[in-house]
């Protein structure tokens, strides 16, 4: 049985807002990384709306860290907005909330990037 995974992109000034839906596991993480790398190649920051992520595996956590580092190396930003309970629990478990750029909403994330 294959689980649902979708990415919906919306452009805002200087950034792409990616609404991620479904499970972030080893398979879907590759898809997310590729999508974000396309955004990065266009020199835009990215906002990941994680409100509809029902599950995140360690590979998904790894992807969030790798993306943050890759975008930072290019002088761009990654903001994680509106975390679902599943994502929030795991990030808190690993004490990663202080390392990642987390916003309560997409609007806050847009403001963080514009600041």
């Amino acid at each position, binding site marked *: *049985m*294959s*689980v649902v995974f979708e990415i919906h992109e919306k452009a805002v000034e200087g950034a792409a807002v990616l609404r991620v839906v479904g*499970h972030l*596991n*080893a*398979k879907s993480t*590759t898809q997310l*990384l*590729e999508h974000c*790398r*396309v955004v990065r*190649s*266009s*020199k*835009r920051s990215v906002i990941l709306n994680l409100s509809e992520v029902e*599950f*995140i*595996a*360690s*590979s998904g*956590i*790894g*992807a969030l*860290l*790798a993306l*943050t*580092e*890759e975008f*930072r190396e290019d*002088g*761009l*930003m990654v903001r994680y907005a509106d975390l679902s*309970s*599943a994502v*929030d*629990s*795991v990030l*808190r*478990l*690993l*004490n*990663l*909330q*202080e*390392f*990642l*750029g987390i916003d309560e909403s997409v609007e806050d994330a847009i403001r*963080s990037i514009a*600041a």
Partner: protein
Amino acid sequence: MSETHDTTTNDALRSTMKGQRQRSKPRFGIRLLVTLVGVGITVLAVLSVGAIQERDTRRTLTSELEARALLEARNLALTSSRALLDDFPELTLQPLLTEKQKRQPELELLVVADRDGQILGHPDQRLLGNRFEIATDALPHATQRRLQADESMLANTDLLIALAPIEYLGQTLGRVAVGIQKSYIDQLLHEARMRQAMILLVVLAFAGLIVYGSMTKLLLPIDALRRGVERIGRGDLETPIAVDERTEIGLLADSVNEMAADLKQAQADMVEKERLARELELAREIQSGLLPENKQESGSFLIDGTHEAAFEVGGDFYDFFNLPDGRIGVAVADVAGKGLAGCLVMSMLSALLGAFRDQYDSPSELLAKLDERLVKDLMSGSFVTMFYGILDPEKGKMCFASAGHMPTLVFRKNTGAVEEYRTKGIPLGAIKGGAIRRTLHDEWVDLADGDLLVQYTDGINETMDPEGHEQFDLPRMHNVVSDAAETGAGAVISNLITAIADFRGDTARLDDETIVVVSRELAGKATMVDGGSPALIAGPTQATPSLEIAPNPAPNVPAEEEAVAWVVDAQRRGIRLDLQSDLDGLSAIRGWLEGQDSIGSLKTSVKELIWTAVYEACANVAEHGYGATNGARFYVWWLSDLPTPQLSLADVGAAEAAVDEETSEEHGTADEGSPIRGRFVLLDRGRPFSPDNWSGTDFSDPKVWRKGRGFGLDIIHRVMTRVVYRPGTRHGNVTLLCFDSTQLEKKELTNVRGL
């Protein structure tokens, strides 16, 4: 937080630098610049021409002035000759001169004097009778006019003076002086200059408007071009610049559009390249994970191997593993095709071997089974050569079969000779229809103390010298093996690798190179295994379910019986979930957990953490044990609120037999217990993997971020109160995860508070 701060600082810095650039370099419009230049050139040209023209005009006017002064003087002299013959010439001359000066005010000097120099005619009658004297500053004036006798021309700063004699019948009666103001020329020139200036202004106004208008029209495409380039700078490579011009600007726009298209293609290529590199890296990691990490020791036997891929990933494969009856399986294979394609087939082969190795005692039967499965999936022309042997350490015998693989070398200690064992099996997947069964047969070889068996792939013996003339070949291998055999398996491998590298010289490795050595070490010379996997260094496993306690392989790894007891207990009391060995199959975990009353009643965040941790543990088994391929099953039990099992050996023995039966078909029943404490037990029969020595990831290390993986154990260890992996029990590999929701909630609360 520091990440965000750095990025924000960089953005602010770039914005500031951009602002500074804009302030320090004022921009001028091309239209204004070209118009100013055009006007300037026009003004310069007109002024230059005007200056030359004025000089010529002045010269002409001066000449005309001389002529006029001379003419006026001669006329006046002619008029005055009759008047001087009268008695009162003043009466005639005075009105004449006054009237003349009135009509021609530029004639400032009009004098008629007799031969004695007495003034007889002057516009100012008060001067009549006075002596006529020419101004002392008047000097002779050079003229090109022909002067007659007694005529002369003088000039000072103000006047040009013509002197002419008054004659009558050959006698000179006096003379006339006529002086014209030089300023008259300046006045004429000034008037001409003013007219010229007016014309210039009108011309300039028209010229400026025309140039400005033309430039505006010409520069319109440049605005479109600029906007397009800015759009490209912002990353929009999709929208072309629409400039339909046949000028150079149009050509430039076409070039920029082509550049954007090339850039887009380059970006796509780069992303694709990165993706492929990442996938290749992943494939390499997966492939290396399929190979044994350590050598294996069993009784007096030591099995060791090495693999070097020609590319990032290769098509060679080797493995050695415990079989249920204490024997050891040894496999070496070479997939036709290297790189990613070879790696994929190799992974498939590894999974198939893992699935079937316990089911066949005959190597040739196993190879035939592998052929039966591979032939369905391999592409036409693709095949696999494979050696598979089963070592019985107790009997010192190895039974093996070869599907088109390289000859097997056996070093005999007692003779010092190297024997070659060749079989006639055809490669796996080469011919459909099971023809391979007629070609495969099992061979037996006895390995006495000091004997040593070497199996390898063709990348070893077919290594070419730098000139490409000669292969390394078997005779050289015989020599290397016989020379190093007495120092053990490790020496044989390292010496072969060194000899191959020396033979190849500076040329690149063209094929994957794999060597496996099975050596029966001399008594007292057995090599200790360094850092080996606990399962692999354990003694031979027992075929019967006897309750002998296997030696504890490492201080932090439980004895086999302890792990077996967990499984038995789980089978008796736990609630089981059967999982497929691919990652998609793991999605069943969530529903199963939700269905457990004790877990379903927990806080959502706690449930999600349990789900994540169990998923990670199961994903480890699926990935490392089964290569994340479907086709096999493994099991996880949930036991709620149970103390650590203290089963007697008799209990274990009685219950153990039921484990295999249950894990093959039936689900168990559950006893519900406390919702806050419990444990998960995983049982799998995949390939054992080395448990990582988890010490907690340092998330402040940037290398960890870039690596972006390997955090599964962090999740498992932080959610579970106890994590144990015991591979290689007689029932399979066992994982124990103990859970206490009160501990987790405390931890969660601490993290929420940021303590």
